[in-house]
Every structure is written in structure tokens, then in C-alpha cells.
């Protein structure tokens, strides 16, 4: 439908002044406030700075070398990076198991589907900061309702200091993050399921395929594109996450750096370290992260394409 509409719309020639008037406000805003800072950030990482934006000189890739050779980066960067990867992996697994299960079950419902969709999406609309603080209160070892409930149920051994213990803090962070975002994959998978012609499923069940094998052979392959898209978006979100870890553990990723992530490290270097070359080093860190995210997203898309072609 879209294609025919586009064919019908004859694109017109407009006088240059009109074009300029229509385009210029958006372009100026975009170029000055977004594009220019973005491009200069890539450049910033190649220079040494003497406090703020006072240029000390071009230093090639020294800022990147610093990240891999000097304290505290040698210790903190790999740790933060692993935490980002753990958040990605945990979210991916839970979304594609719980989220997919919920979506498939909702798809079989009638009118009730909409009610559940709304309920599951509600946490998504709450700010990650509020979510972080809310769960801090709920999981508090002293007044928290979660532990009070566990104790009431006789599960005293499970009434832990969830966010105060370095071994549980990161898993809790992952679970809370999934709790917040799961509505998104549920909605997307649901929409994709709605696009699968029911005849396909019916034909297979006439051929004697059971529920599970119908799901594996027919539904799952048809969901590959949307699962791939969600996974790539999850990857980007997990690598850039800032607000939820900040609400849980502050800028240092407490307890003991257990919830530290790359964006927190970046924030500390940029705005809290007071180092004279903070601009160079933190720009180098942001550039690395950008390249990693870009590379990961491109790789994800290639894998997805290959998978789609194999299936079609």
C-alpha cells in the first residue's frame, strides 16, 4: 500500500528559497548542537589537554594507550566492560525465554490480551532512576517489603542484603532491568506473531505436527527477524546503560564496584576525576565504546541476515 502511495505522489520542484526556509532551522539546530560536538569528540581523543579545553598538543593514540596501561583504567575498564556484557547476556536470555513465552501465550488470548499488554508495559514508562530507587527501597534489608515477605514465608535464609552484597548486586541489577524492559519484547514479539498467517499453523497441525514442533519449525523461524532486532537494541541499551546502575550504586558502582559499568567510568573520568587530561582520556573511552557498539550492531545485523537467508 505504501509503495503505490509513493508512486502516486509526484515529487515537486520547489524554489531554492523555499527549500532553504523549510530545511534551515532543523539543519542548523542539528548541525550545531549534535553533529559538531559528535565529530569533535572523535577528534578530542587524539589530543592531550591541559585542564578543560586547553590544548596541549596532538598525541596520536596516547589516550587510548593510557586506558590499557595505567591505573585505575587497567583495573576498572575490563571489570566495567564485563559487567556490561553480563547485563547484555542476562537480559538477552530472559527476554527470549520469559518474554517470548509471555508473548506466545498472549497471542492465543482474545480481548484480554490488551489488558496484559498494558500491565506488562507499565514499568517501561517509569524512569530508570525511579525504578532504581524504588527497588532500593523494596529490597532494603531493614524496612524492605521483599525481605519482610520472605521472612513471613519462612525463607529467612533468602532475606539477604540484595544490593549491599557484591555477589548479588549485579544479578539483581539485571533482573530489575529485565523487569522494566520486558514489555517491549513482549509487544514486539506479539506484533510479529500477529503477522504470521494462521493457515501456516493450521496446515502444519493437519500434517500432524505437535504444539512444540510447530512452534520450533514454523513460529520461531518466522520470528527470527524481530528477535534479531530486539537483540541488537538490547545490546546497544546494555552497553550504554547508566541511570539504573547510578541509582543502585552511585557513580562508583557500589558495593565494591560490583555494579560499575563503562558509562559510570566515563562519568567519573569526565566530571569527577579532575585530571588535567580528563577530556582526552574520557573521549578515548567514549570513542572505544562507540566503535564497539557500532561493530557489535553491524555484526548482529550480518548474523541476522545470514540467518534469515538460511531460513528462507
Amino acid at each position, binding site marked *: 500500500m505504501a509503495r503505490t502511495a509513493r508512486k502516486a505522489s509526484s515529487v515537486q520542484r520547489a524554489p531554492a528559497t523555499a527549500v532553504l526556509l523549510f530545511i534551515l532551522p532543523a539543519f542548523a539546530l542539528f548541525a550545531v548542537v549534535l553533529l559538531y560536538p559528535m565529530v569533535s569528540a572523535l577528534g578530542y581523543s587524539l589530543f592531550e589537554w591541559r585542564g578543560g579545553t586547553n590544548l596541549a598538543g596532538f598525541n596520536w593514540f596516547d589516550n587510548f594507550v593510557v586506558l590499557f596501561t595505567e591505573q585505575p583504567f587497567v583495573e576498572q575498564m575490563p571489570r566495567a566492560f564485563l559487567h556490561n556484557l553480563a547485563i547484555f547476556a542476562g537480559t538477552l536470555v530472559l527476554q527470549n525465554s520469559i518474554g517470548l513465552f509471555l508473548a506466545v501465550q498472549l497471542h492465543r488470548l482474545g480481548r484480554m490480551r490488551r489488558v496484559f499488554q498494558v500491565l506488562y508495559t507499565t514499568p517501561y514508562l517509569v524512569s530508570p*532512576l525511579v525504578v532504581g530507587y524504588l527497588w532500593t527501597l523494596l529490597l532494603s534489608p531493614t524496612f524492605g517489603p521483599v525481605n519482610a515477605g520472605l521472612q513471613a514465608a519462612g525463607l529467612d535464609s533468602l532475606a539477604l542484603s540484595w544490593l549491599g552484597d557484591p555477589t548479588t548486586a549485579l544479578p539483581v541489577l539485571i533482573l530489575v532491568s529485565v523487569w522494566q524492559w520486558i514489555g517491549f519484547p513482549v509487544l514486539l514479539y*506479539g506484533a510479529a506473531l500477529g503477522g504470521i498467517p494462521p493457515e501456516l499453523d493450521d496446515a502444519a497441525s493437519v500434517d500432524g505436527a505437535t504444539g512444540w514442533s510447530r512452534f520450533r519449525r514454523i513460529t520461531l523461524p518466522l520470528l527470527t527477524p524481530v528477535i534479531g532486532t530486539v537483540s541488537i537494541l538490547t545490546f546497544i541499551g546494555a552497553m550504554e546503560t547508566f541511570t539504573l546502575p547510578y541509582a543502585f550504586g552511585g557513580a562508583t558502582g557500589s558495593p565494591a564496584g560490583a555494579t560499575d559499568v563503562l558509562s559510570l567510568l*566515563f562519568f567519573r573520568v569526565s566530571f569527577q576525576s579532575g585530571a588535567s587530561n580528563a577530556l582526552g582520556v574520557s573521549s578515548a573511552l567514549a570513542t572505544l565504546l562507540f566503535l564497539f557498539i557500532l561493530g557489535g550492531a553491524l555484526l548482529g545485523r550480518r548474523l541476522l541476515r545470514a540467518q534469515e537467508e538460511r531460513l528462507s
Partner: protein
Amino acid sequence: MTSTALASAPATPATGGATPPRRRRRRWSAEKVVVMTVLWLYAAICVAPLITMVLNSFRTHLQIASDPWPFPTDPTVENYVSAWTEASFGRYALNSILITVGSVAISTAVSLPAAYAIARWRFPGRGALEGLFMSGLLIPFMLAILPMFYLMDALRLIDSPLSLILIYSANGVPFTIFVLVSFFRQLPAELEEAAFLDGGGHFTVFLRVMMPLVRPAIATVVVFRFVPIWNDFLMPLVMLRNRENYTLGVGLTTFFGEYQNDWASLFAGLVIATVPLLVLFVFATRQIIQGLTAGIGK
């Protein structure tokens, strides 16, 4: 594919019920009971924390401390009064509203004509321009924060709400143009031609004929820009210094430091920061659900 499907989203509900009723009846079984239980259980997991937040905000600190399970016996609004006035949440809320509404208004206002020109006119460099705008969708915010900070510093806008309005509205341009272009492209050319024959100029045609037709797209864009701006925390944390200028997010962090021992007020503060979004959700559920699923399943 995504863009055209996104454009047609408001007309065709992506989540429409296609399940034949026959199948539904057949599944009324033990399996169905289990599935419904699981679905309701998960729904409870989703909303129980939020309900706890709201209920606890109407109790006193002593009540919360003695029994964390939230059933307010004699509800009080005292927490809201203290959060709103003593902890200046009223001020923070006002700043957040000003910044969010201002940013969304500016980015929509500048993107509308640009999207229209890109979608409907032919001029040299059109493809490149569209590509450039789209590249803005890929920019990770973190990379641009420091240069933005120094840019705002040079403009003497640090600690001014204007810095955030500029940044958010610029940041909204790529997404807004992306959505609006695909909508404008779908409109039939006859409309424009007829308006021209009636003697309308480019500007009149755009303002009187074409813009009213993409109103659903404008609604989608407004809702989808509103949420991330309202929820953003990093930018205000970096740009704002003076408490007077704080947004709800930054205000909340200081509040959590200072009111650590007053749980009731903390819950009230969290509710205040959330309510505007819940209101938006109630009024725009359709836009949100369709927007989130746009481009899938067709």
C-alpha cells in the same frame, strides 16, 4: 520497510486479534488455567512494586518501618506536602515540564517543514541531507556529552534550562524527521496539486493542507520524544549546578541523600516523578503500543 510500516501504523492495529474463536474454545482446559495463572502472576510482578510505591506514599514513616506491607489504614497526604514544598519538588516538576515541553515543541516545529521538504520536493542534495539526518539516530549520547558540555560552556548556558532544551530538541530532530518523512511520503499528490490550482503557495499548502493530514504522526512523535526527555537523568546531572534549576531526576538524587530516613517522603517523591508519565500513558496508550510495535508483523 520499517519506515513505510511505521507510517501506516495508526491505520492498521499491528496487534489486531486474528485468532479464530474455534481455537480459543478448544483450549479451555487445565493447560489454559495454568497459563492464565502464570500470566496474572507475571502481571502482579509488573505492577505490585508500583502499587507498593503509591500506597506507601500515603503512609507515615513509622507505619512503613513497623510493617513494610503497604495497606494504608489512615492515609495521609503529608508526605506529598513535605516533598512538594520543603524538598522543592514543585520547583523541580516545573523545570522538568518546561524543559520537556519546550524541547518537544521546538524539535517538532523545526522538523515538520524539513520533513515535508525532504518527502515532497525535489532539490539537489536531498538524499545526502536525509542520510545526514538519519545518521543522527546512531549517535551514542555519551560520545557527544563532553563536546556538548564545552559548547554550552562557550555559550554561557551551563546551569541554564536553555542548554537542555537546545540539546534535547536537536537530539529529537533525526527521529522526528524520520517518522514524519515516511508519513508525508504516503499522502497522495492530488491533494497538493488541487491546492496549488486553488492558488495556494508552498507555505499555505504545507500549513493548511499537508500538516493537518499528518496529525497522527505528530502525536506519535510527541509521545515518543516526551518519555525519554522526561526520564533523562545524565544530561541534567552534567549541565545543572544550582538547585533552583534541577529537574525531577537530579532533584530526586539529592532528595535520596537528604531524606534517607524518611521513607514515606521518598515514596511520595518517586510518585511525583512518575505521575506525569502515567497520565500520558492513560491518554496515549494506543499511540504507545502501536508505536512500539510499528513495522513488525506486516
